[in-house]
C-alpha cells in the first residue's frame, strides 16, 4: 500500500461515505474529503522534489484476476504526476463552486463527484491496459449523471450524446486491447512496451495502423479532435459549473494523455506516418474552434469552442515528435486545465448572479463587480497566452516544436493564437465594459469569500506556471524524453531490418 493507492482509493471511500451519511452534512463532508485527498496527493511530489527519478514511483503490482492475468498495476511518472495533482486540486474547487449552485439532490451530486475523481486518478496511474480501460469507462458514469441530473435545459440530450460518443470510441479500443493481449500474452503496459521496444512484439504495418487507429479514435473523441468534437459544446453548455470544470480541465486530458501514453510509444511507426494527417486535423481544429468561438452568443459555448482550439495545440505538439513539442503539449494540458477551469468557474459565477449565459445579457459588469472583473481579466489574458502567464509557455513550446517538424504547421497554428485574443478580448469587452444595464447593476454583486477561495489558487498557479516553469517542467521533460526514445528506437531498428530486404528486392 503506497501513498498513490491512498490517493486513488480515498475518493472511492469518500463516494461510499457520502452515500451513507445524512443529506445535510454531505457538502461539508465532500469538501473535507476532497481537501484531504488533495493534501495527501501533495506527498506524491516527494520523489520529484530533489531528484528526478526515471521510471515509475509509488508502484503497486498485485494480481487482480488470475486468468487472463490482469493485474492491479499502478505507478506514477512525470507525465501522470501533474495530471493527478490537477485532478485532486480541481475536485475541492468544484465542491466549493457548487456550494450554492447545486440545491437539489445534493448528496448524490457530491458522491458522483468523488466517484469521478476516483476514475480520473485511476486513468492517469493505471499501468495495465485492462485496468486503464476499467477506469476509462468508470469516468463515464458519474459524468453522465452530473450532466444529466444537474445540467441546464437540454441536459438529457447532452448527457446521452456524451455517453454514446465516448462509448462508441472506447469499444474499438477494447478490441485493440484484447488483440494486443492475444499477441503479447499480457495486459501489463510496461511489459508490452518493453516487448515492442525490443522488437519481440512487432506488427505488420497494416495491423499496426489499425491498432493505432482503434486507440486513436477513442482518444480523439475524448480530446476532442476536429471533426469528432461535436459532443463537447453540448456537454459543456448543459453541464453544471462543476461538471464543466471537471470535464474541461481533467476529462479532456484523458484523451491527450492516452495519445501520449499509449498511441505514440506503442505504435510509433503508425503514429509517425499518420502525423501529417493528425496535424492537419489539429490545425483545422485550432482555427475552426477559434472561428466558431468568435461568433458564439453564449459564453459557455464560447469557452467550449476555445477548448477545441486549445486542445488542437496539444495534439499538434504531441504529433510534432520533438522534445519541445511534447513538453509544450503536456504543459499546455495543465495550463488548459487551470485557465479554462477558471473561465468556467467565472462564467458560473456570472450565471449564478444573472441566470443567463448569453453575452448580450451582460455588459458593464466591471462597475458593480470590480474584483470579479479583474480576476476574469487575468484569466482571459492567461487564456490568450500573454507572456508571464501560463499558456504562453505551453503555446510557445508547441509552436517551436511544430516549427522544428514542419514550419508550415506553425504558420497556420499561430493564427489560432491571434484569433484567441480576438474572441476572448471581444467577450471581455462586451460583458464587462460599457454602461451597466439595469439587470446587471441590480443582480451582479462582487466576489464572496467562498468564491475568492475557489478562484485564488487557480490565479496563483497561472502566474506561478507562467514565471517559474522550472518548478513543473523537469519531470515532464524527462518522461517525454523517454517516450521519444521508445518511439525513436524502434524506427532505427526497423530501418536496419528493412535494408537487407530492400537489397533482396533489387
Amino acid at each position, binding site marked *: 500500500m503506497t501513498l498513490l493507492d491512498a490517493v486513488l482509493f480515498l475518493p472511492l471511500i469518500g463516494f461510499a461515505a457520502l452515500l451513507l451519511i445524512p443529506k445535510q452534512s454531505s457538502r461539508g463532508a465532500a469538501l473535507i474529503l476532497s481537501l484531504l485527498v488533495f493534501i495527501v496527493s501533495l506527498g506524491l511530489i516527494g520523489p520529484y522534489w530533489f531528484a528526478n527519478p526515471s521510471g515509475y514511483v509509488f508502484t503497486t503490482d498485485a494480481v487482480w*484476476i488470475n*486468468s487472463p492475468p490482469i493485474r492491479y498495476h499502478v505507478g506514477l511518472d512525470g507525465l501522470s504526476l501533474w495530471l493527478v495533482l490537477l485532478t485532486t486540486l480541481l475536485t475541492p474547487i468544484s465542491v466549493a463552486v457548487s456550494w450554492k449552485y447545486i440545491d437539489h439532490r445534493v448528496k448524490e451530486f457530491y458522491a458522483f463527484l468523488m466517484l469521478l475523481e476516483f476514475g480520473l486518478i485511476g486513468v492517469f496511474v493505471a499501468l495495465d491496459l485492462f485496468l486503464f*480501460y476499467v477506469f476509462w*469507462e*468508470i469516468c463515464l458514469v458519474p459524468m453522465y449523471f452530473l450532466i*444529466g441530473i444537474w445540467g441546464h435545459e437540454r441536459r*438529457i440530450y447532452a448527457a*446521452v450524446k456524451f455517453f*454514446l460518443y465516448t*462509448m462508441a470510441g472506447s469499444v474499438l479500443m477494447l478490441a485493440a486491447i484484447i488483440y494486443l493481449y492475444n499477441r503479447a500474452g499480457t495486459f501489463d503496459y510496461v511489459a508490452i512496451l518493453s516487448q515492442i521496444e525490443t522488437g519481440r512484439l512487432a506488427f505488420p504495418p497494416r495491423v499496426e495502423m489499425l491498432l493505432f487507429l482503434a486507440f486513436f479514435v477513442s482518444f480523439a473523441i475524448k480530446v476532442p479532435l476536429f471533426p469528432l468534437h461535436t459532443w463537447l459544446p453540448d456537454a459543456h453548455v448543459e453541464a453544471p459549473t462543476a461538471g464543466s470544470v471537471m470535464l474541461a480541465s481533467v476529462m479532456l486530458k484523458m484523451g491527450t494523455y492516452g495519445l501520449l501514453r499509449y498511441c505514440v510509444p506503442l505504435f510509433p511507426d503508425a503514429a509517425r506516418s499518420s502525423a501529417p494527417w493528425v496535424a492537419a486535423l489539429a490545425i483545422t481544429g485550432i482555427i475552426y474552434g477559434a472561428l466558431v468561438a468568435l461568433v458564439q452568443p453564449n459564453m459557455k459555448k464560447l469557452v467550449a469552442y476555445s477548448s477545441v482550439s486549445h486542445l488542437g495545440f496539444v495534439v499538434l505538439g504531441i504529433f510534432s515528435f520533438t522534445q519541445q513539442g511534447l513538453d509544450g503539449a503536456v504543459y499546455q494540458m495543465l495550463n488548459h486545465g487551470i485557465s479554462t477551469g477558471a473561465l468556467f468557474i467565472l462564467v458560473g459565477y456570472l450565471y449564478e448572479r444573472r441566470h443567463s449565459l448569453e453575452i448580450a445579457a451582460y455588459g458593464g459588469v466591471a462597475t458593480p463587480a470590480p474584483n470579479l472583473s479583474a480576476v476574469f481579466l487575468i484569466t482571459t489574458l492567461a487564456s490568450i497566452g500573454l507572456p508571464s502567464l501560463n499558456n504562453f509557455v505551453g503555446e510557445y513550446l508547441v509552436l517551436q516544436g511544430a516549427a522544428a517538424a514542419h514550419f508550415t504547421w506553425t504558420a497556420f497554428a499561430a493564427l489560432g493564437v491571434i484569433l484567441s485574443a480576438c474572441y476572448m478580448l471581444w467577450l471581455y469587452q462586451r460583458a464587462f465594459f460599457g454602461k451597466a444595464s439595469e439587470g446587471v447593476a441590480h443582480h451582479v454583486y462582487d466576489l464572496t469569500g467562498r468564491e475568492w477561495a475557489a478562484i485564488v489558487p487557480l490565479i496563483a498557479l497561472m502566474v506561478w506556471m507562467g514565471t517559474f516553469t522550472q518548478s513543473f517542467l523537469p519531470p515532464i521533460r524527462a518522461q517525454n524524453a523517454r517516450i521519444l526514445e521508445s518511439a525513436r528506437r524502434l524506427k532505427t531498428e526497423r530501418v536496419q531490418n528493412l535494408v537487407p530486404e530492400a537489397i533482396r528486392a533489387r
Partner: protein
Amino acid sequence: MPASYFPAPAEYLRVLPEIVLTLFGVAILFFEAVLSEARKRIFPPLAAAGLGAALAGSILAYGSPGAAFHGMILVDGFATFFRVLVIVVGLLAVFASSEYLRRENHPGGEFYALILFSVAGQSVMASANELIVIFIGLEISSIASYILAGYLRDDPRNSEAALKYFLLGSFATAFLLYGVAWIYGLTGSTNLEAIRRALSGGGAPPLMLTGAAAALMFVGFGFKISAAPFQIWAPDVYQGAPAPVSAFLSVGPKAAAFAILIRTYQTAFGPVAGDWQPLVWACALATMVVGNFAAIQQSNIKRMLAYSSIAHAGYVLIAVAAASQIGAAAAMFYLAAYAFTNFGAFAVVTHVARKGERYVKIDDFAGLAQRQPAMAAMLTIFLLSLIGVPLTGGFCGKFYIFKAALDSNLVWLTVLGLLNSAVAAYYYLRVLVVMYMKDADGPAEPLPAAGTGMKLAVYGSAAATLLLGIFPGLVLEFASRAALK
C-alpha cells in the same frame, strides 16, 4: 452386461438434484390439495428448501462425476455449472414471485411446483449426454414454462403469451426431434460421444446430410435461446407473461438451452465445427442486430428487456461461434453474469409494475430515484451491467466473449459485436434518464416498499452482478476448467 441392468447407487447420486426437485414439486402439489388456505404460506419456503436441497445435491453429485444410466447422463464440471446456475435462478424466481402472487391474488402452490419442475427439466438438460434425454429435459422444462407463462388465467395478456409460446415452441421442438431422427439414421446412435465418433474418421456420412440434421436441430435450439430468425415469440411472451415468470424465462431456460447447444455442437458436431461455424456466425450477428435495433423502438420496459435479451443471446452465440474451450468458458461466464443481471432488472420491473402490472411503460419509472433510491440504484447496476460498464458482471462477460472470438480470429464479428453493444447503450440509458433525470411525474399511485422476498432477489442479484464484475476469477476459473474441449 446383465450387471448394469440395475443402476449402481452412484448413478442415482448423479441424478440427485432432479430427484430432489421432482419430489419437492410433487409434495407441493399434494399439500396444495390437502392444506387449509391459512397454511399455504409455507409453499415459498418449501420451494426454496427444495431448491436449496437440489443445490446441495448437485454439489454432492459433482463429488462423484461420471456417466450414469448407460451414458445417458453425464455429470461433469460443465453439467454442474449449469445445474447450479438454473437452480439458483429458480431460487431467485421463488423469492421474487411470492410477493407478486399474493399481490395478484393467486397464491397457489402449483406455481412453485411448476417452477421446480421447470428447473428439474433444465437440470436434466444440463447433464444430458444423449439426444433423447436432451429432448426429454427440454420438454419437461418447456411444458412447465408454457403453463407458467399463462399462470394468471384471468388475464388475457397471459393467455395470449402462453398460447403463442406453446404453439411456436411445439413447432420448434418438432424440428429438433426431426433433426434427432436424421442423426440417428445417419450415425445409428443418439449418444453424443457415439455421434462424434461416427462423424469423425473414414466412414462419416455425407456432410450434406449431417449438415441438414444439424441445421434442423439448430432450429429447435435457436428457438429456445431466442436467436434470430427464431426470436419472434420472445417479445410477445415476455411482455404478456407475469413479470417474475418473464424474469425466469429470460434466464433459466435460456441458460439450459445454451448448455445443450454447446454440448451438442462441441461434442457431437465437433468434427464438423468448421462447417457450422459460419452458420452460427451469421446467426449471432443477426440476433444482435435484430435485438438491439428493435429494442431502441420500445416504450414498454418488459418488451424492451425482451429484445435486449435477444441481443444478449447474440453475444453468447459469438462465443459459441468461436468453437473453442475458451469460447465455451466465456459463454458459461456470460450466461451466469447475464442471469443475475437480467433477473434483477426484471425483478425491479415486477416491483415497480404494482398490482395488475399496470405500470410497465418506461415512462412509469420517472422519479423512481427519488421515491425509492435503493431500487433505482439497483436497477442502475443491472442496466450498467447490461450495457457492459466495467466492474459489473456484464462487462467481464463481454470481455471474455470478445477475447475468445479474437482468439479464434473472428475479428469482424468482434468489431460488429462491440459496435452493437455501443448501440445498445442507447436504450438502456433511456431508462436511466427517466429514473434520474426526469422530474418525478411518474404515476401518482403510491409504490409500496418491497417485501423481504423481493429484496432478497434484487439485492442478491445486484451483489452477484458486482461480485462477478470485480472478482470474475471466482467463476471464470471453474468455467475454464469445466468447459468442453
